[in-house]
């Protein structure tokens, strides 16, 4: 029997918070393709070059293909990026993703508009044979130790374990969505002012077959995952942290 979702999602959610803790948001489609990897970048670039003119190889592209194929952990990682002013598109042999610029979250309406455009262009590129999985991932950063500010606790001997360097990962189910949530109070992020240490809340919601098809219901699934992750975020943080984020409601 499935357990009820353990995090209470508030009925009313803010439409804006500041300072925004989001480091980056990733909207990813994993797929299988009848095309070889060698042809995919060209097929995609031909469709997106009007907005994504700059290209960048990622370090994994330097690793020989035979080596990448031997390690399942590398198969769903991107090998190159196409960059625009506000977003990145990442592409690998079995993955394509839209990523926000670091520390420059443009808001859901802007992302939704871009997803609409990108999915249409990927469809025209014609290299996706079948969708394997859709995922939405949000990485948030907080200065200091976030654990006392979350409705989430690690216990030892039935007492809260606070103050120690801690890294917790769990997987929750919310309908068809598998939510992998990681909280760590020992993280380092790069910022414009240099590296900062603190805590991260890293949440990824993903959904696999038979409920997904990037071109049939991809936008709806991305939207559902976004809404769930947003609800989880505001359900997880305590009022003290929410107050620091100066929420604005409709």
């Amino acid at each position, binding site marked *: 029997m499935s357990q009820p979702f353990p995090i209470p999602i508030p009925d009313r959610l803010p439409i804006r918070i500041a300072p925004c803790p989001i*480091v*980056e948001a990733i909207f990813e489609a994993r797929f*299988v*393709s*009848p*095309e*070889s990897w060698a042809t995919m970048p060209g097929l995609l670039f031909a469709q997106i070059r009007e907005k994504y003119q700059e290209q960048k190889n*990622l*370090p*994994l592209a*330097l*690793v020989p293909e035979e080596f990448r*194929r*031997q390690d*399942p952990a*590398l*198969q769903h*990682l*991107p090998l190159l990026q196409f960059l625009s002013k506000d977003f990145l598109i990442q592409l690998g042999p079995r993955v394509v993703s839209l990523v926000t610029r*670091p520390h420059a979250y443009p808001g859901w309406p802007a992302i939704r508009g871009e997803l609409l455009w990108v999915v249409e262009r990927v469809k025209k590129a014609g290299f996706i*044979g*079948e*969708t*394997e*999985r859709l995922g939405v991932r949000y*990485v948030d*950063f907080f200065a200091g130790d976030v654990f006392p500010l979350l409705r989430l606790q690690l216990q030892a001997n039935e007492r809260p374990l606070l103050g120690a*360097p*801690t*890294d917790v*990962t*769990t*997987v929750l189910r919310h309908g068809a969505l*598998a939510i*992998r949530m990681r909280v*760590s109070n*020992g*993280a*380092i*992020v790069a910022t414009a002012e240099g590296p900062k*240490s603190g805590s*991260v809340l*890293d949440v990824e919601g*993903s959904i*696999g*077959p*038979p409920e997904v098809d990037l071109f049939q219901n991809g936008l709806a699934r991305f939207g559902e995952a976004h809404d769930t992750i947003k609800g989880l975020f505001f359900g997880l943080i305590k009022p003290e942290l929410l107050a620091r984020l100066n929420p604005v409601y409709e």
Partner: protein
Amino acid sequence: MIGALPPLHPPAYTLTEDLRELSEPASIRRPAPDELAREELLLRKLGPRGWGRVHHFRNYYESGWGEHAGRVLSPMALEAFFRFLASTSFPTGKTAPSVFLTDRGGVELCWENAAGRSVQVEFTREGVEFYDETTGEEGVVGHDASLELSRRLSS
């Protein structure tokens, strides 16, 4: 040699040194957290050999494999295969079912029923094809009927 490789992907964050992964012994393999139940299912129903074959089909067979330019494993077929496997009982005391990747990117499962007769089920992107030697019955059903099929073919 591993240490000489470049970082594989620029991460949004890194963990402080005391929280970084310890190097793991080669005997431990950690599946993705949401894959754990399926890994367990494969081991329980198909044994280590079947687990290894499915792992291979998922990770090492690309489009164009084999003499007949086989297709890559269909995610939809794999999902139907897992759902079927979860609800199917195989006879005890027989060899564990065999599993194959088919040219069209499907997964085929073959086993002997309690009477020692062959049962074959192929999961494809579009549906499920089956053959039961005991009754001579063969046919195709949709993915949504695979649980009912599992009940019929379970011994």
